[in-house]
């Protein structure tokens, strides 16, 4: 697999070759003369911060966008990829983060959607459909029945079904976009094994990721994008973590900031025996001003539900929520916001940011009262405020008037943050604040969380990223199956202790 074993690649060994690709959107140059080549059987990592141009590159190669200039060659032949069908016909297939399967159809139907096998009477040939689907599922290594409905599959299984579909169209170029973002360890291992096998069978893969350490053993070469340009292509052996961070951010490898000493103040939030049937039970905790409390646990441990209950988005079945010594029972997010609570949700595009609204309107949405005059909003002041937030948080957008959909994921997350920083909230609830966010944006979000605590706000963060937990927490509560199973002070704590609690711990 390594480059040492192979002679220098020649044009004939390049399955996909991209040269000088450029694409501009109104106000933003998304790609600026990017080149990249992919050999058969190669796993080529594509790294970069949010907004660096990875998504744009993928969308051009898969026919969703058209490049302004540049050339794409497949097997050395120049091609014009007009639309997704053309890309498919050329053997290019993309496995997206947001999975593109139809939930109410079976696995077999999904695999052959749009390319159904027909009997001579133009009815669907079910026997052949299921046989072929079985063959493809065996190739990717899952033993679920082909008649299973996609809605009944886990995320990891769905991903494998998507890959099976790609193999079904004889994809020779497979693009994986952050495929492990929501997979468990076991699922990730299985996916990696599959990537390895596909590479051996000659499929060329572009693997988009934020986390090089995770994929390093799989990868042959790495291309890093920054601000729409390629910073270079490197054999994976030449890179270490520091080098990657400095390539991605353009700064010399910033050392991880030491855990700051905070001096927590009075208790702001108390939960006493808070319970919601089937989601979490008997949760009691205190959060002080100037303190960052982290709830950690596996996906499905009940953290999101707990935060949403405190925020009034779900009714509690029992227990008490006490804010500044006064019991409250928020019946809606509106009530909670009125009491000074903010929630930055995990599902950014579904619940955090309204992507078709302009950036400025997203930033001010929860704080419109600040701009309300007698009969109307002071739009000029609103714009001034939005510009300030954009500058303060380093949100990369062509204009405050641009729709939020034109921003990268990390910048959308900063818009969601800006929205709540615009309110008078005293208690900030963060649900997986850095999921799918690049290294640079991650650091900035940590800095903001630190600032909030320093300014006397109380902060609760739900996170399953153990490095993140250790980095930002004052105190850590381990949650398992809806119960608190351990409490740790984050001073001389080992990550393994916390991990052990969230995976095996019993309720105290």
């Amino acid at each position: 697999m390594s480059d040492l074993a192979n002679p220098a690649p020649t044009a004939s060994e390049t399955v996909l070759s991209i040269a000088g690709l450029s694409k501009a959107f109104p106000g933003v140059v998304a790609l600026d003369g990017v080149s990249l080549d992919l050999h058969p059987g190669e796993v080529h990592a594509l790294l970069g911060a949010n907004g660096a141009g990875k998504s744009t590159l993928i969308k051009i190669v898969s026919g969703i966008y058209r490049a302004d200039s540049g050339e794409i060659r497949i097997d050395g032949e120049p091609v014009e990829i007009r639309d997704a069908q053309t890309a498919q016909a050329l053997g290019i297939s993309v496995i997206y983060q947001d999975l593109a399967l139809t939930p109410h159809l079976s696995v077999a139907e999904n695999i052959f959607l749009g390319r159904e096998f027909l009997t001579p009477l133009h009815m669907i040939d079910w026997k052949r459909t299921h046989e072929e689907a079985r063959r493809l599922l065996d190739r990717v290594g899952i033993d679920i029945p082909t008649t299973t409905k996609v809605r009944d599959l886990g995320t990891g299984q769905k991903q494998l079904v998507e890959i099976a579909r790609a193999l079904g169209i004889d994809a020779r170029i497979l693009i994986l976009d952050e495929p492990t973002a929501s997979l468990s360890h076991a699922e990730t291992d299985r996916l990696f094994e599959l990537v390895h096998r596909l590479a051996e069978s000659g499929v060329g893969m572009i693997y988009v990721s934020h986390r090089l350490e995770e994929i390093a053993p799989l990868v042959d070469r790495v291309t890093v994008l920054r601000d729409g340009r390629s910073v270079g292509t490197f054999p994976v052996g030449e890179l270490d973590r520091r080098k990657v961070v400095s390539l991605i951010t353009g700064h010399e490898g910033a050392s991880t900031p030491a855990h700051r000493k905070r001096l927590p103040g009075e208790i702001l939030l108390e939960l006493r025996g808070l319970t919601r049937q089937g989601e979490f039970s008997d949760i009691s905790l205190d959060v002080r001003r100037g303190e960052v409390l982290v709830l950690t646990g596996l996906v499905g441990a009940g953290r999101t539900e707990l935060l949403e209950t405190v925020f009034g988005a779900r009714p509690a079945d029992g227990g008490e929520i006490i804010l500044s010594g006064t019991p409250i029972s928020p019946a809606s997010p509106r009530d909670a916001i009125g009491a000074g609570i903010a929630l930055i949700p995990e599902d950014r595009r579904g619940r955090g940011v309204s992507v078709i609204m302009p950036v400025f309107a997203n930033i001010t949405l929860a704080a419109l009262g600040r701009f309300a005059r007698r009969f109307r909003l002071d739009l000029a002041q609103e714009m001034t405020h939005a510009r300030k937030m954009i500058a303060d948080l380093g949100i990369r957008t062509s204009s405050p008037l641009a729709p939020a959909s034109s921003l990268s994921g990390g910048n959308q997350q900063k818009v969601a943050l800006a929205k709540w920083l615009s309110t008078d909230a005293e208690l900030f609830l963060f649900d997986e604040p850095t999921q799918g966010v690049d290294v640079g944006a991650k650091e900035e979000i940590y800095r903001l969380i630190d600032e909030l605590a320093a300014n006397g706000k109380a902060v609760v963060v739900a996170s399953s990223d153990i490095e993140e937990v250790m980095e930002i927490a004052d105190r850590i509560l381990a949650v398992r199956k809806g119960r608190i199973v351990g409490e740790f002070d984050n001073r001389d704590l080992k990550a393994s202790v916390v991990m052990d609690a969230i995976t095996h711990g019993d309720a105290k």
Partner: protein
Amino acid sequence: MSASNTNGSRAGAALTGMASRIDPATVGPAAALALMFIVYSVLSPHFLTVQNITNVLVQSAPLMILASGQTFALLMGGLDLSQGSIVSLVSVVTAGVMMHFGLPLGAAAGLGAGIGIGLVNGLLVGRARIQPFIVTLGMLYITAGAAMVVSDGSSIFGLPRPDVDYFFWFGGGFIGPVPVPTLIAVILIAAAHLVLTQTRIGRHVFAIGSNEQVAVMSGIDVGRVKIFIFLVSGGFAAVGGFMLSGRVISGQPLLGAGDILLQSIGAVIIGGTSIFGGQGGVLRTVIGVLVIAFMVNGLNLLAISTFAQQIIVGAIIILSVWVNTLQRRRT
């Protein structure tokens, strides 16, 4: 000072999707309107006359008002199918009450009935959380039935003088050279535009249409905003119905049973407001109404049958959505 004003007006424009002057979604319908003016002016000597233009503006004033209200419903990602029936109900209630108690009480009762239907729509959508399509489809029938019950199924003629003359004034009078219905329409359109672009509740309408979950999580009282939306949609339909009744100086239980509902929805769509909500505005709808009104007027002048006209209006609705879709796909 002037810089910050520009800031503000651009912010309002960005919400309605008219941030840049060359925004294709706005230019398309406006260009169609301009092209129509040129073609009709060449083909018919009667088209580009003060008399004809005034006529069209007077006749299209009720539709302008209905469609402006309808824009609110589409912006939140819904629609209001009960507008036509509200026109009918307002007509017979106004005329019926006016017969015995005079115009002021007739107007109050008629407009009140229309706004009441809007309120019921709003409560069912906003509080009972039923789909706008279902609620207003049901109310379409209920309100149409109520109009027939109130009037016993027949037209109400012979309204008392002098009230009937004032009544007509609202539907066809003039202040100097300015037709009253057009004036009322302009005032309501301006108010609707200001509410949508410059007020908090207007912003909430866009927020709900853009992503209702985000609106809820941002602390917006979504139910209250929806009630407001259907009050506007129903209230505007009531004013339109009042005007139309004034023009025919009678109460007509089938006054809104014809084209006007579908034209109201069609005009919003032709104007370029998204049927999925969150993008669009009242000024676009004005262009949409003008496209329909002048299209029909020109075809009349060219002596093309009303049957053929329907085919053309339908084609324009599909075409305008198609053009919009193509433009969105390109970006």
